[in-house]
């Protein structure tokens, strides 16, 4: 028999998280700090709206780009948060999670050998999606001393004649880093000068903890709206991961091509999820605020506990992750995380699952209750004491 498989697909590395997942899910008594989704239930009024949608028999396809009402609500939300206007009819597309939008935009814009710059450590999808679209991924290794923010110098050094796209993903998974207005300001003119398209994944935009500044999107800078695909979704802000509902907004000519691919592959996002999303946007603001406050308390708790344990960690100001530096223990991230789960039954994700520049770090999620975090910290403390005695 022939080898039926596509070589490009075969060459793609499976997610580094998968190995950990198999290890952790076979064990009992594991306290997991490894999850990339909220621990809150979807707010009840949102769930109730979806149930009502089903009862009313609204179970048909929606328009390919999504319910117009939902696209209008999305455009209003972007206007409210970032002061940038999008035409709901032509410039907004509702997708199956933010992750579909990531795939669509690369497929819509990449020609063979186009280079796509993205920052590492990063969410696991950018690299394989660029590869599948036939592009060349170019990673910039972000540095702890810069609080894992992208600097102008780093960006400048990575740009070549072939660079077409820059992926920005802030607030960031796995580091929790944010790019402030000033940080973005420093790179905007370079992006325009080099005529790049920005793919800005802002799925964690509502979860920031910077007292001085709310999340600022790159689309709010002059000249950026027309060269940015803004990606967002409902999963993180409204605790709606399983609903698989995201969206993107951008210039009409790009959204039109993305919608074409979406139409032939997906048809439309699930109707019940779309109605639920509409309800979330209409009356979910207080839910967002309460969850954000709760994450912030956990963030402060973990930071103070890590400090107490003598594990250095830059202060993350977004998402729900902490990315402590564990290099003092003389182990790779993988070894550290493996021993922690084998010996103490605490699951964290090695930084290298998010790219090689994650070496020396582990990702700790705080999408857990304070009591769960307390129990996990107790075990981590024991683990570290034992490590110190080994020395």
């Amino acid at each position, binding site marked *: 028999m022939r080898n039926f498989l596509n070589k490009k697909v075969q060459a793609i590395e499976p997610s580094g998280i998968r190995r950990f*997942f198999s290890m952790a*899910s076979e064990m009992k008594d594991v306290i997991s700090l490894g999850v990339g989704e909220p621990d809150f239930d979807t707010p009840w009024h949102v769930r109730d709206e979806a149930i009502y949608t089903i009862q009313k028999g609204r179970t048909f396809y929606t328009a390919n780009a999504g319910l117009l009402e939902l696209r209008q609500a999305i455009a209003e939300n972007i206007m409210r948060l970032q002061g940038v206007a999008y035409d709901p009819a032509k410039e907004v597309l509702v997708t199956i999670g933010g992750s579909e939008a990531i795939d669509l935009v690369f497929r819509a814009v990449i020609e063979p050998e186009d280079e796509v710059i993205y920052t590492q450590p990063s969410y696991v999808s950018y690299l394989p999606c660029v590869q599948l679209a036939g592009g060349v991924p170019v990673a910039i290794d972000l540095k702890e001393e810069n609080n894992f923010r992208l600097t102008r110098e780093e960006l400048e050094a990575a740009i070549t004649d072939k660079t077409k796209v820059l992926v920005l993903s802030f607030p960031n998974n796995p580091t929790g880093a944010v790019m402030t207005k000033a940080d973005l300001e420093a790179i905007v003119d370079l992006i325009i000068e080099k005529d790049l398209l920005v793919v800005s994944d802002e799925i964690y935009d509502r979860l920031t903890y910077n007292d001085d500044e709310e999340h600022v999107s790159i689309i709010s800078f002059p000249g950026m709206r027309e060269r940015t695909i803004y990606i967002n979704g409902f999963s993180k802000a409204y605790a709606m991961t399983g609903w698989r509902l995201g969206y993107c907004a951008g210039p009409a000519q790009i959204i039109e091509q993305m919608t074409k691919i979406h139409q032939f592959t997906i048809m439309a996002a699930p109707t019940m999820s779309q109605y639920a999303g509409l309800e979330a946007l209409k009356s979910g603001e207080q839910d967002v605020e309460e969850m954000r406050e709760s994450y912030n308390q956990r963030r402060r708790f973990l930071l103070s506990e890590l400090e107490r344990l003598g594990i250095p960690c830059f202060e993350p100001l977004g998402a729900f992750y902490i990315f402590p530096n564990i290099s003092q223990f003389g182990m790779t991230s993988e070894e550290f995380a493996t021993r922690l789960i084998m010996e103490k039954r605490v699951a964290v994700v090695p930084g290298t699952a998010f790219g090689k520049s994650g070496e020396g770090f582990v990702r700790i999620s705080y999408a857990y209750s304070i009591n769960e975090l307390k129990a996990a910290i107790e075990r981590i403390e024991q683990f570290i004491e034992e490590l110190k005695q080994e020395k």
Partner: protein
Amino acid sequence: MDIREKILKLIEHDSRLTHKEIATLLGLEEALISQTIKELEEEKIICGYHTLVNWDKTDDNMVSAIIELRVNPQRGQGFDRIAEKIYHFPEVKSMYLTSGGFDFLIELHKAPIREIADFVSSRLSIIEEVQSTTTHVILKKYKEYDTLFIKKENNRRMVVTP
């Protein structure tokens, strides 16, 4: 939200948090937390620290009841005076003056059904201003103080996700 409100919201659901822990969670100084809590206690904004017990899970034959009371307030004797005649009974767990079809709503502590009947007939009904009582025996408690008393499905999140 001001500091007082933030502290109250936290300890309303977990009164066992230490001042140090509250300080960490809110990003404030421990001394400020202690001082604020002291003030809140003195002002009787914090009225007590109790434990939420699901008595239905203990093995007893007692029931709790909610009673709607209609009363005739007398000249010179507002609702507060009548309420006083009622809330001092140790049987009364909580008491409210309400708008609507009746005046007072009271919840009794759990007791054998006989004792509840006695309390209503020989303590409440005989009060001069009490016009009528409607007693509801509580069959099942689903939720109290933001806490579900029925078993919630286990969290089905996977252990590790990107």
